[in-house]
């Protein structure tokens, strides 16, 4: 009897611990190497691909990791499809024209995925869902507002992005295979493949910095932002999520400052571990760097500040150890 209770307690404790730490204790090396074995596997038979990627692995987290890595490593961003969508979104067309355009676009997205292993976010999200569900893990495609330096900054916003929720051990998690796989260099118009762990089973609070689901249930957090707040907050970057930097104020991207008076930026995270904190301020054709001093306001609040010496409109970037974490537009009067 006593041993049964002990085993019961151990099980409860183990479960609680797993919920608490989730997958910190899981080593994904085996999953990553299995994903590497099936480079450019054709997409004709998804069931067989799902089996190859997951059957040798014991846990759901590892099985899903193998699928996620395979998709990120083997599917490339397609720039032509991306720009076609971007330009179409900016044009105003009648409903019928839009429907026809969407049907053609859908056909092209899937053909490119099938034949060339290239796609846009919907293709990534689709493939993740198909492979995961074939491996016995429920998954869904989430459409919503994706926020980047060039999308959904202010304005009314537009639904431009797709990502996934995945159920592992009866709990839902969020991930974004598109943004984890690499990125388009808008300057050189080339796709740079670079896996970013930031978007694999991300903390939903951080994920909400640049993902706003059409169906708010998929935030997976209680404290849901409004769309207006989401579109108008300072611009975050992948490093913001990776370094878990949340800024308390100013809360708006577009802010006002007075000439000669300090503008304060407050964080609820100790920045003392950061070696180099930097303001990069862009005005007209000039980029200037400033290295502010970190002040501890109270036990849980730190701040940095900058004083503008002349009037005008500037873009202000905050960078931690050479990673952009937030951008603001400042009007100095």
């Amino acid at each position, binding site marked *: 009897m006593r041993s049964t209770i002990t085993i019961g307690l151990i099980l409860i404790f183990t479960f609680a611990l797993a919920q608490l730490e989730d997958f910190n204790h899981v080593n994904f090396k085996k999953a990553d190497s299995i994903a590497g074995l099936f480079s450019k596997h054709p997409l004709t038979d998804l069931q067989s691909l799902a089996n190859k990627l997951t059957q040798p692995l014991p846990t759901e987290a590892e099985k899903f990791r193998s699928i996620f890595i395979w998709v990120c490593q083997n599917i490339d961003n397609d720039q032509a499809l991306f720009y*076609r969508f971007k330009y179409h979104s900016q044009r105003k067309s009648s409903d019928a024209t839009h429907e026809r355009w969407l049907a053609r676009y859908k056909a092209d997205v899937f053909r490119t995925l099938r034949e060339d292993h290239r796609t846009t976010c919907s293709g990534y999200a689709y493939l993740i869902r198909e492979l995961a569900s074939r491996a016995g893990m429920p998954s869904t495609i989430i459409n919503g507002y*994706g926020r980047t330096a060039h999308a959904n900054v202010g304005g009314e916003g537009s639904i431009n992005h797709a990502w996934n929720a995945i159920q592992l051990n009866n709990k839902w998690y969020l991930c974004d295979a598109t943004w984890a796989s690499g*990125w388009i260099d808008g300057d050189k118009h080339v796709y740079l493949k670079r896996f970013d762990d930031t978007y694999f089973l991300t903390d939903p609070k951080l994920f909400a910095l640049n993902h706003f689901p059409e169906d708010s249930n998929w935030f997976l957090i209680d404290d849901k932002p409004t769309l207006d707040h989401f579109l108008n907050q300072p611009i975050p970057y992948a490093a913001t999520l990776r370094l878990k930097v949340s800024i308390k104020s100013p809360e708006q991207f577009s802010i006002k400052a007075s000439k000669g008076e300090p503008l304060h930026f407050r964080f609820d995270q100790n920045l003392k571990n950061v070696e180099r904190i930097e303001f990069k301020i862009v005005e007209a054709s000039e980029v200037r760097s400033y290295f502010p001093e970190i002040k501890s306001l109270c036990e849980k609040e730190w701040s940095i500040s900058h004083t503008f010496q002349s009037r005008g409109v500037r873009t202000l970037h905050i960078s931690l150890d050479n990673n952009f974490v937030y951008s603001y537009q400042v009007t100095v009067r």
Partner: protein
Amino acid sequence: MKTNTYNPNSVIQSECLSNIFDNRVSRLISFLTLVFVLTATNSITAQSPDKTVKGVVTQAEDGEQLAGVHIQLKGTTLGTITDAGGKFTFPQRLKAQDVLVFSFVGLKTQELTITETTPEFIDIQMTYEDFTIVGELGDDGVFTARKRPLSWVFNALKRNK
């Protein structure tokens, strides 16, 4: 004169007769059983004869014949794919209740249960997945105010980094 006296031989004879009769009955029963079983088997076979399933797979919206559609016998690893003209011949003869699974990237997976009435040449129409397609991609660029040439500021930031 033969009297109705007890004759052990006649008893034996009559037992033999009864055995012979019993054997005949049991043979008849066996024969009838065999006939019954054969008829039953035949009727089952008549309901679901093995058949070779051939067909063509097209895209429902535009009628395009789909090459490379994967067709699998559910619960097995046995499968085939459609040729350039969307046509296929399933490599194994199929019987009633067998289920074929048709899958193709971007189209809804379809299942077809084989029945007695399934024709030998089937026409499968597959439809697109019905979620809305969007087109965002990874963007690691830094925000730049739109009035300025984008590339210049981006380069300036990189130089400054």
